């Protein structure tokens, strides 16, 4: 039985987070009524000309920097020619020869092992529109097809990897790492399910030790990380089966069927498609000045891996905690700011990962979208330490802050949640508990010491948690002695 080695290369498309489109000033806002974010330029009216969106170039350069790429002094746009109704000009402005950036890498970690994946190129292009077919899933056979040009011209960044990926799991981890990076530096919201991050894969297998690549197939329609893993697993299996039976792999494009978890070959002449690329004569070359690149560099935040390592070391956190706290720049900033004003970072981390994260999850919010500051959290934690409120009360306080956005002190005052530290006040409660629980009091007095905890619990309940448990116990024991 042959041992096979799997070779995978990925081609990723990421929608850039710009306000306006790649070559016109139309809004890129998602979800508008069909054909409302359009203009003569992005609908390809005769006579229009494209003008490059500088912000899109900046975001692609930013990405190229964190992908350790070489940014080319001169790069040019090219026309990719093909007819399709979602492409108003019947050519896509893309980059072909001389892309924006080349020769980079990303380090990923798969099951504890670090691995470097090469990046062949990063380039800019424009997105196509959306077709809706009636009477058929595809344009052929449809009774009618409608086109929405709102998405047409949205800036896309294409990232192509070297064939360095060796398993479906590596591919999935690569995509997750890339998503995290793109989100972290704020160039793309990178949601595969929504199509703002898309991925096609080239996959082939060869006998282990061989140095020639096998025939590759291109896998499309992978709309989630899970789909990336499943599709490549299925395609890898198919290659093995075909080759082991003495068959041949045909170079073709295959679509992943998410439900059947198999890939389906398209009877298209995709590989024979001649796009007749040539330099876009309506645009001048991109020649980013050194100073501009340096300026862009300054806008890049500390990357997640580095930040996590620093959090682990500086705040004495576990690896898992550090990774959680660096999952987005907003969470990381929140934690760091809180830690500046509160001396026990581990406790702050627990609150963020616990109650706060639960609240955000339940309400489908992110930390930068709520009216809650790291300072408020630090203040609340300080009050716990001072004994003004108990940990339990703090949970109520936090929930109330998140609900109302009010100040910590105001909430404590309004809800009467301050801890009772006046002994006579506590003794009043204790007297009441002793009177109401003669059985348990008798048991305690007869030597069943653990029953004291029941009585403490009753005090806590009666005081709505506003008495410190150890103080309640001490005063109870004194009263019962």
């Amino acid at each position, binding site marked *: 039985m042959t041992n096979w080695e799997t070779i995978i290369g990925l081609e990723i498309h990421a929608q850039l987070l710009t306000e306006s489109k790649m070559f016109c000033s139309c809004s890129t806002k998602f979800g508008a009524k069909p054909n409302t974010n359009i203009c*003569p330029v992005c609908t390809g*009216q*005769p006579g*229009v000309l*494209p*003008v490059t969106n500088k912000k899109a170039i900046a975001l692609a350069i930013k990405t190229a920097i964190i992908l350790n790429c070489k940014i080319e002094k001169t790069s040019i746009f090219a026309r990719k020619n093909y*007819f399709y109704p979602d492409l108003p*000009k019947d*050519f896509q402005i893309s980059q072909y020869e001389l892309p924006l950036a080349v020769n980079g890498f990303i380090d990923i970690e798969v099951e504890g092992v670090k691995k470097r994946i090469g990046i062949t190129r990063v380039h800019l292009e424009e997105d196509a529109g959306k077709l809706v077919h009636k009477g058929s899933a595809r344009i052929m056979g449809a009774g009618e097809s409608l086109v929405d040009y709102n998405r047409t011209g949205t800036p896309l960044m294409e990232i192509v990897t070297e064939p360095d990926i060796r398993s479906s799991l590596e591919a999935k981890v690569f995509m997750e790492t890339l998503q995290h990076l793109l989100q972290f530096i704020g160039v793309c919201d990178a949601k595969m399910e929504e199509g703002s991050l898309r991925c096609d894969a080239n996959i082939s297998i060869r006998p282990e030790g061989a140095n020639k690549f096998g025939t590759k197939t291109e896998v499309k329609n992978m709309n989630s990380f899970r789909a990336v893993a499943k599709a490549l697993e299925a395609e890898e299996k198919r290659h093995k089966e075909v080759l082991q039976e003495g068959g041949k792999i045909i170079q073709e494009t295959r679509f992943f069927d998410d439900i059947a978890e198999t890939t389906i070959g398209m009877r298209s002449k995709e590989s024979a498609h001649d796009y*007749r690329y040539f330099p876009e004569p309506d645009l001048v070359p991109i020649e980013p000045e050194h100073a501009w690149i340096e300026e862009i560099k300054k806008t890049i935040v500390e990357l997640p891996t580095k930040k996590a390592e620093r959090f682990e070391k500086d705040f004495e956190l576990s690896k898992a905690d550090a990774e959680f706290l660096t999952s987005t720049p907003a969470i990381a900033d929140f934690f760091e700011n809180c830690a500046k004003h509160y001396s026990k970072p581990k406790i702050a981390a627990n609150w963020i990962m616990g109650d706060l994260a639960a609240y955000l999850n339940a309400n489908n919010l992110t930390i930068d979208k709520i009216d809650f500051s790291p300072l408020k959290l630090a203040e609340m934690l300080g009050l716990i330490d001072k004994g003004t409120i108990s940990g339990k009360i703090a949970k109520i306080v936090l929930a109330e802050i998140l609900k109302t956005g009010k100040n910590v002190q105001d909430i404590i005052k309004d809800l009467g949640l301050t801890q009772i530290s006046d002994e006579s006040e506590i003794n009043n409660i204790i007297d009441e508990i002793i009177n109401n629980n003669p059985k348990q009091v008798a048991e305690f007095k007869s030597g069943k010491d653990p029953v004291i905890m029941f009585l403490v619990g009753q005090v806590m309940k009666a005081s709505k948690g506003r008495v410190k448990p150890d103080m309640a116990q001490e005063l109870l024991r004194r009263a019962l002695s």
Partner: protein
Amino acid sequence: MNSLTAHELHQLLLNKKVSSVEITEAVFKQIEKNEDKVKAYVSLTKEKALKNAEEADKRIRSGENIPPLCGIPIAIKDNMCTKGTRTTCSSKILNNYLPPYDATIVKKLDDLLAVPTGKTNLDEFAMGSSTENSGYFTTKNPWDLKTVPGGSSGGSAAATAADECILALGSDTGGSIRQPASFCGVVGLKPTYGLVSRYGLIAFASSLDQIGPITKDVTDAALLLNAIAGYDQKDSTSVNRPVPNYQNSLVNSADKLRIGLISDLMGKGIDEDVKKAIKTAARVFESMGAIVEEVSMPTFEYAVPTYYIIAPAEASSNLARFDGVKFGHRSKEAPDLINMYYNTRKEGFGSEVKRRIMIGTYVLSAGYYDAFYLKALKARTLIKQDFEKAFKRFDILISPTAPSVAFKIGEKANDPLSMYLSDIATIPVNLAGLPAISLPCGFSKGLPIGLQIIGDAFAEEKTLQAAFAYEQHTDWHKKRPKL
């Protein structure tokens, strides 16, 4: 009145001797009288013209600063987008097309309250040298209605020569302003690539196209260039540099001007009468104190083949959008997408356009790209270098604009190669992106001959000055056809 120039009419307007409405009406009267014979216009825009004329008269009465083209009737080639006004490129595929926007130059002229008379005929998508490729009809040369007016801006040149407008806009990809100007005995100026915005000019070959004036004399050409030149942020290839006042370059002096007479355009294939006229023009320059020497441009022999690779390549891509999906003609025979594409384009495009789309598609195809397209780009660089060398020695270069005077309608219609060669003197200039002007310099068999003056990049001032000085020493530009 409609036979006057824009600068003459401007003076009359300022002195309140005449109103813009009167000029406009005179022009439309001339159109009514002669258009059946000349057929220069695809569409007339009389309503819009009169509206602007009235506005212009109001502005003139108010005595504000009056720009030279305010209230002056101007014809616009029908490949420039005019918002809400049919713009066809003389193609059936755009028969019903109403642009949702104005070309930058259209907007500029409208802001000056120039008076748009209508949209002039051209070879379909500006592909041709005679207007015989128009999807609608052939425009006639006002000097001899049996001959072509040249092309592709034949409608604009014929309208100007026939006094059916005061001046006009053309576009020039391989000679499409200069050659018809030459054939119709008027002045045609192709500016440096990047001087005039192309936004709204329906592209034929993006790296070669340039909009420019077609006028009755050099002064008008300078005035119209003033109105349309300048950086446009909507056109990334337009050059951001200060634009001089070209009127200042209208100085009657050619003293010590170093002139190169391009010997490669004075040999085989050029009519004897044309050569004679150019030699005479050279002597006129010498009489003004200019120094004329012959210069050889050895790469010119590659210019036509180079052009017929680059221009169709770009055109094949530029014209892809005419697919029946969004605007223009859509075939009724559209059982499915592919057949909608096939039939729409089969019915909508004429044979010359189809020929060039096929050539362009071929030269960009895998396996042919290097042999044709890349090689053509290299040849283009060599042609540019030839010019660079020449402009180290000379201030301007001169040559015939076309190898002959206007030819008979139908004479070359079935011989595309000979038709392509009629642009041999103009094409190198587009490939190098340089400015050049054609102006009348004589007659042969009763038809005008054009002198081409080529300048270095952005040397419109020098070019215009040479042309102006020549014009002051001759009176060819005063000759008008008798219709």
